């Protein structure tokens, strides 16, 4: 008895597998193509267990998309530190596949910043930056490498900086007694002869 899959395989112009898979749990996501990628190529991020035949049959049966060829590659992840930096580990690699489509597919343009109001982009961006700053500072503090220049500039620090600059520009102005070196020393304590008769 011919299964529906086998019937579909006969109908397709290109070779299609006839293997039946029940209740799959794979997650296949379509990824925005790189710039200048022709519209007949579609990029997918697939499970590591997928092969080229799998994505071809998956797209045909589940999405009714015919594919003439598939290119695949595995992206190795960068080494990462474990929690509390107790060692290194490498996250699991990710597999990508580029399918050559029979019918071209052009992705919609990236949303402009103005058009992201529904996503509350402004708040998100501010919060994200703040969080990054906090993370960086805490990282430095954990390492014990926080330097004065990494601290936030308070009013006091700015004032001290101003005075320090003044001193560095003209050290003589900060000579003893606030006198410039060019001026002569003046005796402050002078013996004053008092008239005893008065």
């Amino acid at each position, binding site marked *: 008895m011919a299964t529906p899959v086998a019937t579909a395989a006969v109908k397709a112009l290109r070779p299609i597998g006839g293997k*039946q*898979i029940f209740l799959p749990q*794979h997650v296949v996501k379509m990824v925005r193509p790189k710039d*200048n990628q022709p519209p007949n190529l579609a990029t997918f991020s697939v499970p590591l267990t997928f092969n080229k035949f799998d994505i071809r049959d998956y797209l045909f049966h589940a999405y009714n998309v015919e594919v003439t060829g598939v290119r695949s590659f595995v992206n190795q992840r960068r080494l990462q530190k474990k929690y509390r930096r107790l060692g290194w580990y490498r996250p699991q690699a990710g597999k990508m596949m580029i399918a050559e489509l029979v019918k*071209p597919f052009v992705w919609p343009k990236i949303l402009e910043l103005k058009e992201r109001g529904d*996503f509350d982009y402004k708040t998100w961006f501010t919060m994200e930056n703040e969080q990054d700053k906090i993370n960086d500072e805490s990282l430095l503090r954990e390492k014990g490498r926080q330097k004065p220049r990494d601290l936030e500039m308070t009013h006091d620090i700015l004032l001290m900086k101003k005075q320090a600059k003044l001193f560095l520009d003209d050290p003589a102005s900060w000579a003893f007694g606030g006198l410039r070196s060019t001026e002569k020393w003046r005796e402050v304590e002078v013996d004053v002869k008092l008239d005893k008769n008065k």
Partner: protein
Amino acid sequence: MVTLGALRPSMGAALQICRASSTHGIAAPARTVTSRAAARPVFYPSAQAASLSTTAVLLKRHKYVGARVTRDNNKQRGESVLRRTGTRWRLSMSDEPLPQPVKPEELPPVETDPNHGLWEFFQDRTSIASPPLKDAQHGRPWTAEELRHKSWEDLHKLWWVCVKEQNRIATAKWERDNRQLGYGGAEAETRRKTVLATQKAIKHVLTERFYAWEDAVELAKSDPEINLSGDGPAFTPQEYLEEVPGEGAPVEEIEAAESDVATSPIPDSSTPLPPKSNAQKTASTI
């Protein structure tokens, strides 16, 4: 005997030769391959300058006039791609105007089929990821109790609806994270968990049915009405059911188990073809 029909191709070739020889002035000894008697009355021999082998004449390739005689007989000596010298030989397409390259921006835009299957990977056709407020508009997951009343075909269709919804959510997440669209991650995660709960309920129900089928097989081994050997009919009903006072419950149990057998999933007769659904339908069913 050469007929007019058989002559036609050779006549055409000969005409071309006449034209080519008159323009290029290449003189070659006249020699015909076909019947001279038939060809002579039409045109001969004043214009005939080449053999009937048309290839040599039609090609504009000839020896470069000022070509040096190199010691190694290298025909390509002096030709360089880097210095863009071009060929030393006149080529057959030398007179043809070459097509000018067109910038990608000036090309007509590629039209995408509005019914393209890949649209099903998107929650929204403009922003890929749907905004969080819209993403949060979904119901609760299917419960196992609701799914117990569904057939295997229905459950399998619902499973594929869940698979496609998961793909949609994953595609949106990638776009939201990499293009920095903004908020929406938490709503998408809730939605994904709802889908997973539905899938879990489907598996729960199927497992229940499998256990019921196992129990029914055990019961059938001791049932005189059922023949599990494979020879003859599997079910031979007795003429009447013996009513034993006080033992009504076990009979009902057996009947219930048999009815479970009838509805138990048999995977090999099913189809993995998913239902043709879209995002809106999915959002309403899940």
